[in-house]
C-alpha cells in the first residue's frame, strides 16, 4: 500500500487552461457533426471519443473523466438520430477507464497513445454493440474490418491531436 501511494504521488496530473476542456469538447462535437457534410470520409473520425480519451488520460481523475465522457456522449447522442444515452454510456465508461489507466500507464508516448486509442475505440464499439443488442434489440457486428480501419485511423489521428491538445496544458 505504501509503494502504491508513493507511485501515485509521482503521477503528474495535468492542468489545462480555463475553458480548454469545454472548448475542445464543443469543437470536437461541432466538427464531428459538420465535417461529414463537406468531407464524406470524415465519417470515420471519432473526435468526441478522442477528446474523452485525451482528457481522461490527462486529468487522471475517474470521476471527472466519466462525467466528461457522459457529457460528451450525451451531446453526441443529441446531435445524432439515435436515442439519448447510447454514446453516453459508452463514453462514460471510456472516460472512467481512461482516467483510471492514466494513473498507471505512460500516456505521453505517441505509441502508447496510438495503442490506447485503438483499445478505447474497441471498448466504445463493444459497449455500443452490447447496448444496441441488449436494449435496442439491434444485432450489430462486434468486429468488422471497416471498424478496425476506423480504429487505426482514429489512433493515428489521436497521436497528432493529442500533441496539439498538449499545448493547452498549463505549464
Amino acid at each position, binding site marked *: 500500500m505504501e509503494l502504491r501511494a508513493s507511485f501515485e504521488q509521482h503521477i503528474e496530473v495535468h492542468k489545462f487552461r480555463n475553458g480548454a476542456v469545454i472548448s475542445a469538447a464543443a469543437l470536437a462535437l461541432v466538427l464531428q457533426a459538420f465535417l461529414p457534410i463537406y468531407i464524406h470520409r470524415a465519417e470515420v473520425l471519432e473526435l468526441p471519443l478522442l477528446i474523452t480519451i485525451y482528457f481522461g488520460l490527462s486529468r487522471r481523475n475517474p470521476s471527472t473523466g466519466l462525467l466528461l465522457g457522459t457529457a460528451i456522449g450525451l451531446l453526441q447522442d443529441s446531435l445524432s438520430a439515435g*436515442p439519448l444515452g447510447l454514446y453516453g454510456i459508452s463514453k462514460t465508461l471510456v472516460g472512467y477507464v481512461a482516467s483510471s489507466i492514466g494513473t498507471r500507464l505512460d500516456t505521453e508516448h505517441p505509441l502508447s497513445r496510438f495503442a490506447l486509442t485503438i483499445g478505447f475505440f474497441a471498448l466504445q464499439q463493444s459497449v455500443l454493440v452490447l*447496448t444496441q443488442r441488449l*436494449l435496442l434489440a439491434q444485432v450489430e457486428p462486434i468486429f468488422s474490418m471497416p471498424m478496425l480501419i476506423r480504429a487505426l485511423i482514429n489512433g493515428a489521428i489521436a497521436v497528432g491531436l493529442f500533441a496539439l491538445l498538449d499545448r493547452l496544458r498549463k505549464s
Partner: protein
Amino acid sequence: MVGIPSRHRSLALLAVVVAAQVLLLAVQIRRERQGRLIRVWSVTLISPIERAGVWTIDNIRDIWGHYAGLRSTNRENRDLHEELNRLKLRNIVLESKAAESDRLASLLAFRQSHQEVPMVAARVIGAGADPGSKVIYLNRGEHSRLKRNMAVITPDGVVGKIIEVYPEAAQVLLVTDKESGVGAMLADSRTQTPADGLGEPRLALKYVSNDEKVYVGERVVTSGQDRIFPKDWPVGSVVAAKPANPFQVIRVQPAAHLQHLEEVFVLLSQQELEPQKDAPKVTDPAPRKSAPAAPPH
C-alpha cells in the same frame, strides 16, 4: 457519497451515471407491440412481484378459506352429529312406539276377537330378582279380580300362571321355570304330555314314548288337563326330539316371546279360546257370556 470510501466514489459514480443513462435509453426506446422499453422493464420487473403477491394473497386467502371452511365444517359436522344422535334417539323412540302400537293393535285385535272370554290385559312391570327363577310381575292385582293359578297368555301362546296376587300387582311363574309346567299335547298326534320348565328358555316334553313319531317343528298346544290353560292354545314347537330310555327327549321352543314380554292377558276363567294363527283376526265365536276386560294401564 457519504460513507463511501474515496477510492470507490468514482466507481459508485460510474454505476449511477451508467444506470441513469440506461434508464434514459429505456425511456426512449420503443419496442414493437411492447411499448417503451422502460415500460417493458417496469412490467418485467414488477410483474413477478405482483404475480408473487397475488399468488401469496390467493394462497393465504385460499388457506384462510379452507381454514375457515374447516372450522365451519367441523362445527357443522359436530352439529350434524348431534342432530344425527337426536334423530337416532327419536327414531328409536318412534320405532319403540310403533312396535308398541303394533303390539297394542295386536292385543286389541286379540281381545276384540275373544270378547266372550273374560280376560284382563296387563302390563309386565318387572321380573324376578332371582336369576334362577322365571317370574314376572304384572300391573294388575286383586283390584282387577286376579287370583292365583289364573292363566297368563299372549296372542302367541302360553306365558305362565299367577302364583301370587297383590292389590295392584301379580306375580307370574313362567312356563319355563323349573317348578312350572303346562298340560300339553302334540298338535298332530294329539299325544298328551306335560310340558315342563327346565329353568332355561326351552320346555321339555317328558313322557312321550319312543313309539310316537315326533318331528321337529311339530306344534305343541295346551291339553286343558291342568285346568289352568284353555285347550289348544299354543305352547310352542318341537325343536329337538331324540329317542331315549324310557321316553324321548323332546325340547320345545315356547311360542310366546317370554324374553320380551310387555303386555299379556290374564284369563279370568278357563274358557276355551280360539287360537290366533299368524295374524290376529277377529273371529265370530258362538255368543257366550262376556266379561268385562280392562285395558293395560
